[in-house]
């Protein structure tokens, strides 16, 4: 469906870098985020959380808390109905424990009180009797036969024969083609290694926050920070037994999500408290709660084996991935398996994945969920194998890169994409040939992500002065409203400044899927372009009426209605403002709409290059230089595309070097704060250079590919390759924290 405009590259405003529509509010402190909302009569909610990693809840006595002056409601699992649809059941149980606390931080009860200090006091008055159970937080330990069992109703799915005993392994998946044994037999060199990664957190700076207001008649409103307010509405309605139509959810400005705000944690609790108290309830997580009780990534245990001929041809690729997804099934191991080898062409590929349950918070998506850890393992082995073959790591990748028509690791044949281009640009970049000093190393790695479309509904309204309002239902996490306005301005032929975009509430548009899967600029952009085309038709029709000529005799060019040809008649072109100004007398308001399940999302590839230096005496890693090469299809607002590349790379740097969930022997999280969960700070980093590659996606009118997720796939591998070169020893565990790097270097010397 690639549009003529894009093919000819004749964009007027696409590709420019204007100020974002929400910009002034964001730099003046006026923008309203989740915790900034106040409703009249509002109470403050707080959640009591389990201090145990695994415990039966024998009883909960809330009487003393309820008796405290200022406490207006106390809720436990007993306040939630049992007949919740299966799809939402785990989500509900993750919000509030039903009979059993499954991880340190699992919600057990909640209170609403007239002040924060009273709510805190009330929490201390709730008496919970726990029967502490043995726990398991390690993915390998959880797979053992004698591991403490989280659920007695989970039997491993995906096996040839359905097992009869329950397990912490909820499923096995397998992908691939060919026969890897045959492939390895044909190889001259084979490298295989085991890898481990720890869980990381999205680390958005804004803790989850919401204000719920639910009337006894089941009509309610909810204000919250989320990546998908329609998802919040549907989930909360299901859990609380409400009609979807009665719950209006408004998405606040959102202070980062990265996948972590694609599900709910506190929203149904706020609504249930509100229903019980008869007043609005605000619930805001503390940072400690964010780390303990929201959705970090999986930790992973992986084995990768790759073989190649002496001429550099990869003959076989095989992997075994075990991902823990926390206390419920649904780690992203399938996506790890599907993406692991997606950058390569080989006749024989096989990945097997296990979805493992442990006593940790339920994993949530984090930017290209499941892919980064697999890429860390695979790209490490690819570089090592290149070294064994005496090949340059970029050359080796260029030789084996998947191209259009090659069978992909996840099944279908690849369509046109920009992987080769990222590799070629990387090879040609001056970064690749810059000199390195002592204890320094350079690493490269590739990464792949699918990108998704999904349900999308948009509206476009033209004002009497010719300015344009557009409404989307996809939350703007990183500046997407600017891109929306650019696309509409391009399509209508009006200046960017004349178009404004809002994220509408759930009662104002059709259902929109979450802002996830790098889909927003793609899907809402596509729907808006089609909304604009819808509006253009109506504008032409109005002009035709005014001119009293047939509708098909009018065309829309450069923001004006014009007679389509010499036979249409002699009329001066009418601008959008002129047609809009006559809307009242020509048939009423002029608007455009589009609803779709957006098809045609294009995959995106990236190659990252990084130089690091390792302190040989302390193992400390310093990132010296970093360059991202990524295919954006078409960069609508290049500054925000660069921003996605840079942000993803830096999150990957954190994941590679310092970020990790640290559990104690007692199964409790040891580092539930930004002090010891060490995300990169400004002084840790160099500038992050970016090269935007534009291989248009034929599935989008302007050629857009999602860009938000791919950028976190290569960094850990690129850094591992760089650090391994600098340290003189292959690093196989994340994070590559100083004690780990120093030990690896010392062990290698010994």
């Amino acid at each position, binding site marked *: 469906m690639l549009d003529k405009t894009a093919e000819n590259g004749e964009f007027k405003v696409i590709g420019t870098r204007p100020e974002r529509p929400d910009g002034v509010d964001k730099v003046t402190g006026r923008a309203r985020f989740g915790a900034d909302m106040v409703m009249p009569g509002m109470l403050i909610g707080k959640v009591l959380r389990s201090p145990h990693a695994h415990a039966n809840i024998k009883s909960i006595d809330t009487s003393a808390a309820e008796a405290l002056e200022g406490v207006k409601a106390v809720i436990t699992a007993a306040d939630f109905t049992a007949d919740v649809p299966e799809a939402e059941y785990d989500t509900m149980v993750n919000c509030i424990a039903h009979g059993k606390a499954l991880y340190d931080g699992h919600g057990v009860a909640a209170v609403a009180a007239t002040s924060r200090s009273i709510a805190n006091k009330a929490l201390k008055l709730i008496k919970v009797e726990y029967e502490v159970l043995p726990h398991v937080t390690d993915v390998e330990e959880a797979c053992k036969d004698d591991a403490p069992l989280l659920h007695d109703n989970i039997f491993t799915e*995906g*096996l*040839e024969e359905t097992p009869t005993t329950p397990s912490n392994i909820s499923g*096995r*998946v*397998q*992908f*691939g083609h060919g026969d890897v044994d045959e492939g390895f037999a044909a190889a001259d060199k084979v490298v295989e290694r085991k890898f481990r990664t720890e869980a990381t957190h*999205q680390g958005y700076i804004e803790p989850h926050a919401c204000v719920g207001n639910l009337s006894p008649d089941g009509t309610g409103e909810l204000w919250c920070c989320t990546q998908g307010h329609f998802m919040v509405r549907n989930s909360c309605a299901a859990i609380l037994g409400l009609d979807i139509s009665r719950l209006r959810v408004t998405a606040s400005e959102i202070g980062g999500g*990265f*996948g*972590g705000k*694609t599900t709910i944690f506190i929203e149904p609790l706020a609504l249930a408290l509100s229903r019980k108290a008869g007043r609005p309830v605000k619930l805001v997580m503390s940072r400690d709660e964010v780390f303990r009780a929201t959705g970090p990534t999986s930790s992973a245990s992986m084995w990768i084996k790759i073989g190649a001929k002496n001429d550099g041809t990869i003959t076989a690729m095989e992997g075994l991935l075990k991902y823990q997804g926390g206390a419920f099934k649904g780690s*992203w191991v*399938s*996506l790890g398996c*599907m993406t692991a080898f997606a950058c390569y062409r080989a006749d024989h590929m*096989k990945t*097997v994945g296990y979805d493992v349950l442990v006593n940790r918070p339920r994993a*949530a*998506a*984090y*930017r*290209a*969920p499941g892919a980064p850890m697999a890429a860390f393992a695979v790209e490490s082995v690819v570089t090592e194998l290149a070294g064994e073959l005496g090949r340059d790591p970029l050359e080796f990748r260029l030789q084996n890169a998947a191209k259009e028509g090659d069978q*992909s690791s*996840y*099944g*279908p*044949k*690849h*369509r046109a994409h920009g992987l080769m281009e990222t590799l070629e640009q990387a090879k040609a970049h001056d970064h690749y040939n810059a000199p390195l000093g002592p204890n320094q190393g350079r690493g490269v790695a590739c990464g792949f*992500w*699918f*990108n*998704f*479309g*999904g*349900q999308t509904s948009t509206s476009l309204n033209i004002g009497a002065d010719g300015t344009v309002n557009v409404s989307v239902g996809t939350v703007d996490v990183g500046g997407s409203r600017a891109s929306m306005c650019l696309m509409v301005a391009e399509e209508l032929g009006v200046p960017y400044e004349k178009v404004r975009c809002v994220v509408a509430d759930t009662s104002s548009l059709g259902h929109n899927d979450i802002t*996830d*899967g*790098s*889909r927003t600029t793609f899907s809402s952009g596509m729907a808006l372009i089609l909304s604009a085309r819808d509006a253009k038709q109506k504008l032409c029709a109005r002009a035709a009426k005014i001119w009293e000529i047939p509708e098909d005799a009018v065309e829309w060019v450069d923001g004006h209605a014009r007679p389509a040809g010499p036979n249409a008649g002699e009329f001066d072109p009418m601008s959008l403002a002129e047609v809009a100004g006559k809307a009242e007398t020509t048939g009423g308001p002029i608007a455009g709409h589009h609803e779709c*399940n957006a*098809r*045609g*999302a294009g995959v995106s590839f990236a190659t990252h290059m990084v130089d690091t230096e390792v302190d040989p005496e302390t193992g400390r890693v310093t990132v010296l230089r970093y360059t991202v090469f990524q295919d954006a299809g078409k960069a609508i607002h290049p500054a925000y595309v660069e921003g996605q590349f840079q942000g993803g790379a830096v999150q990957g740097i954190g994941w590679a070097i310092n970020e990790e969930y640290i559990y104690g022997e007692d199964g409790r999280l040891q580092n539930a704060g930004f002090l010891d969960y060490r995300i990169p700070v400004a002084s840790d980093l160099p500038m992050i250079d970016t090269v935007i590659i534009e291989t248009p996606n034929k*599935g989008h009118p302007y050629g857009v590919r999602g860009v938000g*997720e791919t950028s976190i796939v290569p960094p850990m591998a690129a850094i591992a390759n760089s650090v391994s070169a600098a340290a003189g020893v292959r690093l196989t565990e994340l994070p590559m924290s100083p004690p780990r790097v120093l030990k690896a270097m010392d062990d290698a010397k010994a």
Partner: protein
Amino acid sequence: MVKVNLWGSLKSAASGRASIDVEAQTIRQMFRALGEQEPGLVPILDSGITVAIDGQIYRDDWFKEVDDDSEVYLLPRMEGG
């Protein structure tokens, strides 16, 4: 006939078959035909599944056309971050 390729571990729900030929013009017809041939697939198809047609990914898209010479792969439900 459309040749529908299953991902590795889906075979266990389809009598060990790696691919299944069905008569279908749309994804919906394809799902229906698959379920008739291999009832073990029905719960998985119902739980939401992704379909790749000629390398393009479709989620929840019943009426997308499938041609006899289309390359069709079933894939697990995918979600991003």
